């Protein structure tokens, strides 16, 4: 990176960390758990909205999504289709209830409704799932940055972890919210800039309209697919139904999000924050995927590498596969140049309305696409032959390769700051929530109920440092995960269905005992893990299946574990 890039990166990150600590320290004297965990319940709707969006949009979103669009088109946007309806449902049901019960964590509610063991189970599932997801959200950008920039991955993980723990420990939820506001500003500025630049960088003879037609012809504008196919990962139906349950569980029961909107000054502010997220999330994800599609068009005229992860291809140097790889690269380059020429003929034919020329160019482009795909597959096979552990999916390296090689000085530093900011904004919420749940639902509830407020805050700070350390440790050992944005959603989908089922049982199965729900949840988790191991069902469906299974099983085993009016009661309505 150029010196200017380093200055932009360092000053951006320093400002975020130091200013967040300063702003939150002003209010930290005599802080109570209410202050530390929910920032004293003083957040306005826009703070809630920004915090909710920043928590969900980790660095994986910005590194992996454009690459996802480059490789697979924009269809991933469908996985967010369930979000707006989920926000409405949570506004109607969850927000008023959480505020009314005056809870600090989502799992406190479960003890009021069921019993301690159900609360402990749900909190434990959250701690397990969220800690893995947090480790992925730190590891993911770190490994990509380390490969693209030549940095040591352990140092990158360590830097992100230290920065996050610093301000999260210092100011709790208030510091996290302040930092997220600045981080979202950096992210928005960076992504809007790269969006304009990727289009501006197209050849002068290729207009924006030409670019749209090229992307559409290449199958990148597959944003909505109404077919119903359980084995197709991304369709309108899997996104709407499976995605609805994923988002309901994530926003309704995951403490890392519940804590964000419980910080709202009132039911009104919390609701407005979530509703704003409901309206903005899909356009935001669509915009990021669109950048990926335009990046694809850019590379149609700028000869992409046969494989974007240079650290993997470098392993072939000096081996018996090197010569063959170089030959494949050369053929790839030649075919890409021919394809560029054919694309120019195609766009010219579109402008002039010459259908014969258009058909001929289209046939040429189809065959060159096949050739390029075959060459790339052969290159990936070589990488695997050389090293069976080689990561042959380069989706996560496409965007940053474009940033490093084709953006102007200064903007590179800003985009690297975007990656760090996104990673920190998610990780801070996650670590904050892990610490809060650990102390409130596990430590204080099971072991030390009579701590003073000051002592509780101190112990929560300690837990924040501990969880930061654990997650940095986990992240160091994360292996290759394929597309990272898929990995993090898959980890969530393995657990969210059951957790949502527990909460829905609490709301709507009034005469079901905590033990029945507890048993149902354990069986459901086992079933979901089996489905993941032995079937090809798209992972988004696990959320719906898991949720329905908990409810059905809870009803089925209820006769064995009857509801008792003396021990359990429905939450106040």
């Amino acid at each position, binding site marked *: 990176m150029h010196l200017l890039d380093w200055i932009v990166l360092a000053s951006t990150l320093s400002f975020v960390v130091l200013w967040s600590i300063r702003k939150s320290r002003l209010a930290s004297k005599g802080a*109570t758990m*209410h202050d530390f965990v929910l920032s*004293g*319940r003083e957040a306005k709707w826009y703070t809630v909205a920004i915090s909710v969006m920043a928590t969900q949009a980790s660095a994986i979103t910005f590194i992996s999504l454009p690459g996802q669009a480059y490789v697979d088109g924009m269809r991933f*946007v469908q996985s967010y*289709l369930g979000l*707006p*309806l989920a*926000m*409405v449902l949570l*506004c*109607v049901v969850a927000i008023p209830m959480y*505020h009314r019960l*005056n809870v*600090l964590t989502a799992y406190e509610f479960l003890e009021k409704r069921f019993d301690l063991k159900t609360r402990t189970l749900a909190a434990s599932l959250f701690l397990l799932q969220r800690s893995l997801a947090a480790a992925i959200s730190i590891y993911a950008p770190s490994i990509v940055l380390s490969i693209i920039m030549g940095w040591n991955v352990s140092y990158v993980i360590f830097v992100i972890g230290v920065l996050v723990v610093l301000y999260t420990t210092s100011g709790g939820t208030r510091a996290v919210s302040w930092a997220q506001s600045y981080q979202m500003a950096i992210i928005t500025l960076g992504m809007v800039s790269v969006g304009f630049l990727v289009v501006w960088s197209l050849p002068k003879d290729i207009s924006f309209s030409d670019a*749209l*037609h090229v*992307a*559409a*012809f290449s199958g990148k*504008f*597959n*944003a*909505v697919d109404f077919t119903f196919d359980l084995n197709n990962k991304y369709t*309108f139906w899997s996104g709407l139904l499976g995605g609805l349950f994923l988002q309901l569980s994530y926003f309704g029961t995951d403490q890392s999000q519940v804590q964000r909107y419980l910080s709202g*000054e*009132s*039911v*009104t502010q919390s*609701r*407005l924050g979530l*509703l704003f997220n*409901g*309206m903005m999330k*899909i*356009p935001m994800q*669509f915009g990021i995927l669109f950048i990926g599609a335009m990046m694809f068009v850019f590379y149609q005229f700028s000869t992409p590498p046969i494989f974007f992860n240079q650290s993997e291809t470098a392993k072939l140097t000096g081996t018996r596969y090197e010569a063959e790889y170089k030959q494949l690269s050369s053929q790839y380059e030649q075919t890409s140049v021919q394809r560029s020429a054919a694309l120019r003929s195609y766009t010219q034919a*579109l402008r002039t309305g010459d259908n014969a020329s*258009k058909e001929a160019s289209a046939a040429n482009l189809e065959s060159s696409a096949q050739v390029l795909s075959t060459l790339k597959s052969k290159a990936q096979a070589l990488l695997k032959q050389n090293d069976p552990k080689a990561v042959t999916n380069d989706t996560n390296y496409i965007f940053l390769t474009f940033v490093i090689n084709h953006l102007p000085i200064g903007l590179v530093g800003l985009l690297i700051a975007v990656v760090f900011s996104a990673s920190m904004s998610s990780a801070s919420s996650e670590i904050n929530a892990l610490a809060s749940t650990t102390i*409130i639902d596990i430590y*204080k*509830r099971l072991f030390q*109920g009579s701590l003073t*407020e000051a002592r509780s805050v101190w112990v929560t700070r300690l837990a924040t440092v501990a969880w930061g350390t654990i997650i940095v440790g986990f992240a160091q050992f994360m292996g290759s995960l394929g597309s990272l944005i898929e990995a993090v959603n898959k980890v969530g989908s393995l657990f969210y269905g059951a957790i949502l089922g527990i909460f829905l049982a609490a709301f709507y199965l009034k005469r079901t005992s905590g033990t029945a729900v507890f048993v149902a949840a354990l069986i459901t988790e086992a079933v979901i893990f089996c489905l993941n191991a032995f079937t090809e069902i798209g992972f988004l469906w696990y959320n719906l299946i898991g949720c329905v299974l908990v409810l059905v099983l809870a009803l089925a085993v209820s006769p064995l574990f009857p509801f008792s009016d003396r021990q359990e009661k429905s939450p106040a309505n």
Partner: protein
Amino acid sequence: MSHQAPFKDVQHDASQDSTAPVFSSWQAWYGLVLGVFAALVGLMYWFSHAFAS
């Protein structure tokens, strides 16, 4: 465990008024969000096909 004093709920409950509107303001908000969602799906569907040639 102890909690702080209850939060302030500043939401006005229009359903208690004798001249309450047919839809509460919250229902209007929910309708807006779902309407925006429907519009986005329509826009994305149009986008998916508008540039095919």
